[in-house]
């Protein structure tokens, strides 16, 4: 399928998805649960651009995600601050603007991480990203303007654009972000950029020697991955209405965004989507029916089982079966 056709198809699917749910689903819980699953589609697709395509493991998803969320919190408080400090009155910042700003700031953080890849490969890069997320968390904990470790309450605007309640609005935005990230991932895959990234993943030295501009490509990958994670985090303050460092930097985001692509399959755009829908739905069901601690245990155990038994994920399993079927028939 050509890229332009693919974009048209997924945008149509996105719109149809939102319209159908708005027409037939009135239960608010569906939107709350659906938002989380969609958010994981964005996060795991973003992670996969760096982890799956380029071969750099990022354990710091929480940092990028939370930076997006906290940039929204700052923008939310901005009118109030300007009013009290400079007697300026500005309109509240709309959420789509916050998403763009959150994406820009997390993208910058991603660019910084990209320069780390100059020195750090493999395990060292992974540990550095883990360290990065703790450093960023410490900064936020000590930053009083956004509530420090106590957290900050965010009051949703009374009116939601596009009709319906505010949660429906958040759901629509997250669907749009999912479409955007899946579209980007798929466009990268077949492009020169994607081939370059795959060359880096397979053998960075050989790629460099064959004239692949490795640093530039890695910087593009880290920036793009970071920006998408930040965009996924930007609506979070309005979703939870109470933002605190412990939950916004939760290790669960990092584990999930690693586990979903690994379980789905890392070499193709569809892998993270399958992983996110599968794991995200299981977790939502387990949270409601069993307990929220147990659903995290499920993710951990599935992650371990899959890396041992099926290192190429569900996509790899299906490809294996298909190959076998074709050679038999």
């Amino acid at each position, binding site marked *: 399928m050509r890229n332009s056709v693919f974009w048209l198809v997924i945008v149509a699917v996105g719109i149809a998805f939102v319209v159908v749910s708005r027409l037939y689903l009135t239960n608010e819980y569906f939107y709350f649960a659906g938002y989380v699953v969609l958010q994981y589609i964005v996060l795991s697709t973003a992670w996969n651009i760096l982890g799956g395509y380029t071969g750099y493991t990022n354990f710091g998803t929480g940092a990028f995600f939370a930076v997006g969320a906290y940039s929204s919190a700052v923008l939310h408080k901005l009118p109030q601050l300007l009013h009290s400090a400079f007697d300026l009155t500005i309109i509240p910042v709309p959420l789509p603007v916050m998403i763009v700003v959150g994406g820009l700031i997390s993208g910058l953080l991603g660019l910084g991480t990209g320069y780390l890849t100059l*020195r750090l490969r493999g395990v*060292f890069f992974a540990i550095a990203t*883990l*360290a990065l997320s703790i450093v960023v968390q410490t900064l936020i904990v000590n930053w009083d303007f956004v509530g420090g470790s106590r957290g900050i309450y965010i009051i949703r605007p009374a009116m939601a654009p596009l009709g319906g309640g505010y949660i429906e609005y958040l759901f629509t935005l997250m669907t749009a972000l999912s479409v955007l990230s899946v579209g980007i991932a798929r466009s990268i895959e077949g492009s020169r950029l994607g081939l370059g990234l795959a060359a880096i993943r397979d053998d960075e030295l050989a790629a460099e020697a064959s004239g692949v501009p490795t640093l530039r490509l890695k910087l593009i990958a880290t920036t793009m991955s970071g920006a998408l994670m930040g965009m996924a985090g930007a609506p979070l303050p309005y979703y939870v209405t109470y933002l605190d460092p412990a939950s916004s930097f939760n290790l669960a985001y*990092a584990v999930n965004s*690693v586990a979903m692509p690994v379980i789905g399959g890392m070499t193709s755009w569809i892998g993270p989507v399958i992983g996110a829908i599968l794991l995200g739905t299981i977790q939502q069901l387990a949270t409601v029916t069993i307990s929220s601690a147990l659903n995290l245990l499920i993710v951990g*155990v599935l992650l*371990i089982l899959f890396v041992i038994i099926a290192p190429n994920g569900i996509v790899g399993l299906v490809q294996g079966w298909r190959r076998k079927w074709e050679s038999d028939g």
Partner: protein
Amino acid sequence: MIIQSGLLLNAIIAGILLGGFYAAVSVGVTISFGMLDIANISQPAFILLGSYAAYMTNLYFGLDPILTGIVMTPAFFVLGMAVYRLYYFAFERRGDQAIQGLAFFFGLLFVGEVSLVLIFGVDYRFVAASYIGPSIHMGIVELPLRMLLPCVFSLIMVGLLQLYLSRSFIGRAILAVSQDGLALQLMAASPIKIKQIAFGISIATCAVAGSFLIIIQPVEPSIGRDYIGRIFAICVLGGMTSMPGMLIAAMLIGVVESITATFYGPSWAPAVSFGFLLVTLAVRPAGLMGR
């Protein structure tokens, strides 16, 4: 000024004691990551397992935590060997250890933490022992026993391990496998068996380190994460394979953290070790005593 310098002196001494404890926590990773090239980021989960083992025996049998830690080492050794077996068959043998292997240990860390939450809840747990509380006073210097004892025992443990690695046959084989596995094979020793023993030792140290941890501070399942950065910072800063280097790095990070906590507040302390790690990785990946 006198108060300030007294505070500084106490902060430095507290930091050295803390550093001694950090050495016990990091020695396992220096063996597994530094020597065997296995990035065991789930080490903190095993340390917490050690803490909770000490907590249980202390609660039900009133046993001394440090004693429990030492008694538990064989069990942890066997556990470590089992984990290495699994790791070997699933990843090392196939040759793809990079992302999958890391994801495996990441999953293990998470499963360990969540299991502890499910069993013990998220309340802080602590142990009772005669040396928790009192301090030795020497002029303006204060030596809390609950810091001093872990530090002393930790130095003994690191010393014994260093002795074992440099003197015994298996210890030397472990050092050899870290340099050249194939050459070791040509000397008729199995690298896999040697690595299995070494990984077992690295997990066995968690039993002791975990008992120190619960003496020093109350423990809840998620504090393990704070130690990932510290452990790897110390390991990398110390030059990966060198025990003396690891010890110096542990002391250094302990002192810097303690000074930060005293003068800027404890909430800034975690950033110190992670900042150290990021800077070390970016500027001098070979560490202080690197080859």
